């Protein structure tokens, strides 16, 4: 039986700034259709890792392959099958929702772009905002626009950095379901960072706990909670964040 190559393969990833090791030997994979949570305290190296996967930050060491393409050597091909949404990267506020989707759709060379835009405006409840400048939308609406942009090219790898951070609970639930659908039906691999452990436990197949640039724990959310005797994923997160957890004891 042929072994399917993961949509994302990260090995030995390092990023140093002088003496600071922001990311220190991180290795993981995301398979097609899998949702992997990347969690950790502020400054753990999550966004640095995502920036390296997106090709906007050069690695100090290690390799990143997206859909089999090495980001360092075949950046255009690798990123053609990738997209992202991040709370800290809103789309230009001086363009309307539809204009933003058209511009980014053209950058990603999306075929049948007009039809794709219509589909996404409907899926993300943006039809009535299509002619509205993105900058005047509420933060939740802007997040939906960013997510619609992230789906334009039907990515094989989707990077989501706190995608539901500023969204009301009902919309957040709908978006979580939608992203789970994208993973299950379209077979996209998703790397999802969040500080909402309930959300991570609900949607992620696996979770990676990152602290000081290293992966301290990795596994299925429910199994990790059980193995470490924590009451919840949030309790486990707090333990890891406070470095109360002894990794050697956890391994034994």
């Amino acid at each position, binding site marked *: 039986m042929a072994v399917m190559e993961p949509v994302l393969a990260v090995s030995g990833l390092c990023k140093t*700034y002088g003496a600071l090791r922001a990311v220190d030997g991180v290795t993981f994979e995301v398979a097609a259709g899998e949702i992997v949570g990347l969690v950790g305290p502020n400054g753990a190296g999550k*966004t*640095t890792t995502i*920036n390296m996967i*997106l*090709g*906007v*930050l*050069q690695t100090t060491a290690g390799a990143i392959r997206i859909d089999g393409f090495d980001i360092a050597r075949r*950046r*255009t*091909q690798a*990123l*053609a099958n990738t997209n*992202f949404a*991040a*709370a*800290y*990267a*809103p*789309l*230009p*506020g*001086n*363009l*309307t929702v539809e*204009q933003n989707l*058209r*511009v*980014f*759709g*053209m*950058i*990603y*060379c999306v075929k049948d772009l007009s039809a794709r835009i219509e589909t996404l405006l409907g899926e993300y409840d943006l039809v009535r905002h299509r002619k509205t*400048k993105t900058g005047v939308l509420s933060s939740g609406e802007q997040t939906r626009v960013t997510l619609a*942009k992230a789906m334009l090219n039907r990515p094989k790898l989707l990077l989501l950095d706190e995608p539901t951070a500023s969204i009301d609970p009902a919309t957040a639930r709908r978006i979580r379901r939608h992203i789970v659908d994208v993973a299950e039906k379209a077979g996209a691999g998703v790397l999802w960072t969040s500080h909402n452990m309930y959300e991570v436990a609900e949607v992620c197949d696996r979770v990676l706990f990152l602290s000081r640039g290293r992966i301290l724990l990795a596994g299925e959310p429910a199994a990790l909670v059980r193995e470490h005797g924590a009451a919840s994923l949030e309790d486990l997160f707090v333990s890891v964040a406070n470095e109360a957890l002894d990794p050697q004891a956890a391994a034994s």
Partner: protein
Amino acid sequence: MRFSPTAAIVLRQVYLLRGSPTRLLPMVAWVAIDIVLWGFITRYLNAVTGPRVNFVATLLGAVLLWDFLGRVMQGVTTAFFEDVWSRNFLNIFATPLTIADYLGGLVITGVGTSLMGLLVMLTLATAAFGLSFLGYGAALAPFLLVLFVTGISLGILGAAIVLRLGPASEWLIWPIPSLLSPFAGVFYPLSVLPGWMQAIGRALPPSYVFEGMRAIVGGHAPPAGALAFAGGLAFVYLLAACWIFAAVYRFAIRTGLIARYSAESAS
């Protein structure tokens, strides 16, 4: 350079211009003011000096051509600054867009917006002050081409400087044409300059354009050899500017500068 991503950069600028009169107005207002101001100055100089020198062709023509170069440069840099102002670097550069796609889009945008300015300048200078530039016909094309290419080079260089030094360095970019104008012999022959300024002037392609224009206005043949040299020099500068932008972009990727540009939007 691929069609769709390059067209996306151009389309973005079209959307912005279409939706914002405050972006459209400066493209024509400042050049119109320059033409009106210098038009009346040349008319006055013609009146007090008699018919020996045609100041309309020499001075107003020079203003028009120099403004044109500035408009080309600003067209390129303004399209780049839209990404700076909207904190859009992460969205733009975390895509399959290549540097060639991006620069291609900026250049096409700069060419388009500067042609609009040129049209306004020519119309006003011809209708109001009788400057008959179009009478030179195809002979004008190589002059405009050299200025086009030089303006594009300066625009790309300006974008590279802002990418490297950050948004606050924007004020360094706007005065570049003014800084170069004394050396380029816009209003006077290079021969009136001291030796060291002449040396700098000879390294600037526009100086050959203005020397050539003065030759034509004086009834001489266009200096084909000098213009060809200027064209070659301008293309060398264009390649150098693209190389510098690519080098700065690589630096920005290596150091995380692109992500920091974006991070400012979060603060």
